[in-house]
């Protein structure tokens, strides 16, 4: 009976995780620009792989495997926002603009651009050697 309940839980977790991964992939195709696609990839995608790792942990029922699966899940939950933030910041600073469906560009006035990047009329004076090396 206990194995039956565990198999039920593992099966439901597997289908739910794969469904979230599929939703993230569909969002990666359907959405319009890179900033919108980040919503799908870094939230639904991380949730999908995390739920699948949780299914592996529930299926094993061994302490070492459960510990490693939880550690991996925590690692993915911590690193996915960091990598998405770095990629969005790099793309915005280099000059990829949001699409027209984004009515309001909240970063346009607040973000601090390093010298040598950004709009071409502001970098015309310093020359090409003032690149962003950080």
């Amino acid at each position, binding site marked *: 009976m206990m194995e039956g309940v565990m198999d*039920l839980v593992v099966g439901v977790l597997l289908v739910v995780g794969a469904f979230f991964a599929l939703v993230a992939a569909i969002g990666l195709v359907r959405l319009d620009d890179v900033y919108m696609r980040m919503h799908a990839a870094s939230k639904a995608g991380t949730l999908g792989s995390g739920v*699948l790792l949780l299914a*592996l942990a529930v299926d094993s029922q061994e302490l070492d495997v459960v510990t490693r699966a939880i550690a*991996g899940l925590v690692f993915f939950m911590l690193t996915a926002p960091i990598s998405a933030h770095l990629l969005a910041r790099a793309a915005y600073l280099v000059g990829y603009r949001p699409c027209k469906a984004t009515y309001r560009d909240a970063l346009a006035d607040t973000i601090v651009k390093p010298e*040598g990047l950004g709009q071409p009329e502001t970098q015309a004076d310093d020359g090409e050697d003032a690149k962003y090396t950080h």
Partner: protein
Amino acid sequence: MIDMSLFLEVCVDIAFALLSISFIIIVYRIATGPTLPDRILALDMMVAVAIGFIATFGVRSGFYLYVDIAIALGLVGFLSTVAFARFVLARGSTEDSAIGRKDGGADR
């Protein structure tokens, strides 16, 4: 009474099918992504789907050692995404970016 191990087998098959469809969709985005950050984001998403695929295969085969491979793949994916982001930043403005467009539209 439904046999629960048969239910688990069917669920594993469904998960494999959904993850394979996700792989195909992500490869389409990598191939036709209009800009470089789109491709980097799709590669990052592909690593996440591969981690899920490895976990599903661990459930099917019973080799729970696969969770170590999933953790290592996640570490490599995170580091490669960080390195790609630094590359985008260091590469600076190129002609395929949207710099200088007055309409503010993204590349389609």
